[in-house]
């Protein structure tokens, strides 16, 4: 799409979607690209589905896009929901072990969907299913699920390791930078391993 790349971050309010988007935006910006980003705040923050979009390239006009090249999902159901943003050449990077059960499912009015791989196949998109929770725990905090996924997604985005580190340093508050750098590297390595295995 005119040489610009669209990354959408989806998840549940409170999961650090905005920080994830900020890291991505800083990284692209420090890499010398034009960046536009948008998100919906306010009522959506209270445990609802959230969507944040970052677009970068030589020239970016619109701050939003109904389609994404890469979707980063910090929660399984939101990952399945986010499939519809992707075209057939898109990539879904999803926290496959993170489930936040919505009220309607808790009350047994609806069923939580399980088949992430099936949804990806149906859509014909590439799937990077990541145990982001496991990675975040290993890095030192469960709150780093978002950054672990950024690490995983970094393998399909056009930035160098140095550029990512610069982006992380610019966006992440100093006192939690170290643990997030660890989560990023572990996420990045996890995909590399997955690639070798498959």
């Amino acid at each position, binding site marked *: 799409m005119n040489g610009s790349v669209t990354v959408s971050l989806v998840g549940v309010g409170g999961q650090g979607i905005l920080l994830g988007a900020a890291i991505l935006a800083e990284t692209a910006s420090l890499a010398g690209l034009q960046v536009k980003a948008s998100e919906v*705040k306010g009522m959506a923050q*209270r445990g609802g589905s959230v969507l944040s979009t970052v677009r970068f390239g030589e020239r970016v006009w619109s701050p939003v896009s109904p389609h994404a090249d890469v979707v980063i999902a910090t929660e399984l159901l939101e990952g399945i929901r986010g499939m519809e943003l992707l075209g057939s050449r898109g990539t879904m990077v999803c926290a496959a072990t993170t489930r936040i*059960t*919505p009220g309607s499912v*808790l009350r047994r009015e*609806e069923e939580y969907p399980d088949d992430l791989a099936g949804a990806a196949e149906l859509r014909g998109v590439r799937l990077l299913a990541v145990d982001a929770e496991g990675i975040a725990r290993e890095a030192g905090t469960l709150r780093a699920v978002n950054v672990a996924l950024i690490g995983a997604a970094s393998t399909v985005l056009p930035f160098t390791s140095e550029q990512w580190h610069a982006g992380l340093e610019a966006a992440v508050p100093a006192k939690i930078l170290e643990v997030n750098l660890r989560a990023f590297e572990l996420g990045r390595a996890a995909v590399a391993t997955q690639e070798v295995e498959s």
Partner: protein
Amino acid sequence: MERQLFFSGNEAIAHGAVRAGARFACGYPGTPSTEIVETAARLEGIHSQWCVNEKVALETAVGASLAGVRTIVTMKHVGLNVAADPLMTLSLTGVNAGLVIVSADDPGMHSSQNEQDNRAYAKFAKIPMLEPSDSQEAYDFVAEAFALSEEFDTPVLLRTTTRISHGRGQVVPRVPVEAPAREYARDMSKYVMVPQYARQRNRVVLERLEKLRRRAEESPLNVLEAGSSDFGIIASGVAYTYAREAFPKAWFLKLGMSHPLPYAKVARLYEHVSRVAVVEELDPFFEEQIRALGLPVVGKEAIPSDGELDQEIVFRALEPYVLRKPPRRRRPVMPPAPRLSAPPQPAPGLPVRPPVLCPGCSHRSVFAALRRRKLAPMGDIGCYTLGSLPPLLALDSCLCMGASVGMMAGFNKALGKKAAVGVIGDSTFFHSGITPLIDAFYNEVEGMLVVLDNRTTAMTGHQGHPGTGIQPDRAQGPAVDIQRLCEGIGVRCVTVDATDHKALDVAVKEEAAAPGLGVIVALAPCVLMTRHRAGEVVVDDERCNLCGLCVDIGCPAIAPGDGAVAVLESCTGCGLCVEVCRRGALSLAETVEC
């Protein structure tokens, strides 16, 4: 001969309202609107009150309309600026019993700081507008306005100007209209304007506007009056009377229902005459719309854009155009029906994830207490608006910032009892909940207001407000005490620890039974700020029969499990589920803070 009365327009509106079955009149005094409520106050069968300002007056009127009685609310043109917040969303919710808003404009600024043309509000809010041109029409149009309001489920703007409101003329009284009270039925998707419902209502409004346009085409209030010349004039209100006197031979399209504009009727005038002028005071409101149809028209190049008109001004302005060579006849280009965006399609088969109140949120405790009292909770804007969604279903309305108080007041005043309760957050209370509380005290409302004081502006991300004294840089500034403020007004007020479910329930019960007006401050800092874990909820699998009472409080941390409910990791131990359980299946184990 028929009995005739000699009324100012304002007197005629008040009498017309009573004749139309209105039972509630309120407003804020402002020239030239004041005498409507003053006159109503002298009439039988209608309750009249002054409100603290126009915003509160409109919110009070909305409460009375919801309670089921036809209601008229009055203000001067600049007053509608103050009431614009409720107006713009009232267009979305619509009404229960008919609701007529009188805006009395003041061209020439006899007694005003500006001469804004409030016809723009009809367009802005996408609501119908009626403009009487004398006292008889002022009297008659009120009944038309109420009928339109109920038929199309919309507030109706009745717009006058100084010469209509303060001009006098004969009025022939008409047979009273039967307007039985309309029972209130709670309907969250109509009255609680959270985004998901408001998006649906917005589509209703856009479709309603086109239906109203079709009505305006047929309405006898919009009259094509035959003349004997080749000159036609489009006008409304007092400007029509000036033009009529200045050009007795002209054809006229007299617009009584002047928004939305009946395009076809406008075009029909052009079939009879080759030259058309628009005579209107202030803005080119009709003129712009007529030019957009591609029709040639004489307007503001001749008629002054400021001040009042009269027949001399109109005659002198238009005389040169009457004899001028007519413009080439053109066909109108009718605007196509406006398109709506594609309705949102949720992904099939996937559970929706609306925003929810957090686990341990103290608002939930208030909702649980209110639910037991069978009061209609009028809500406001903040996190607690989420209490309107399933499974809590704990709020009946959400209109605009601060509306809970005035709506509660109007609702209860109309029914003469404590039928509704206001629910407002601490920051919203400071934003615009204080003036309506003063109003409710002044108007001797039987009512209750619960201030959900979580010590922050939570929904937008925990900003400070005057009740906390917290500044944008988190510095501590002076803080206002809500209870002392209420007591200063003269309103009974208690502060209750909102984490103490029993105490809260008792306070709500007592206040519901007490006469007069009272405020309960339900105090507990936002759980997102404290991250406080009060204890651990333990489930007795033997006693739990999965009745669902605890699940119905809408806490994301408790869910039906296999054989018994399960408590999730996100539980803060607030204990509300323990409180609502009737089988003693849940208990709270103390945890040691580390």
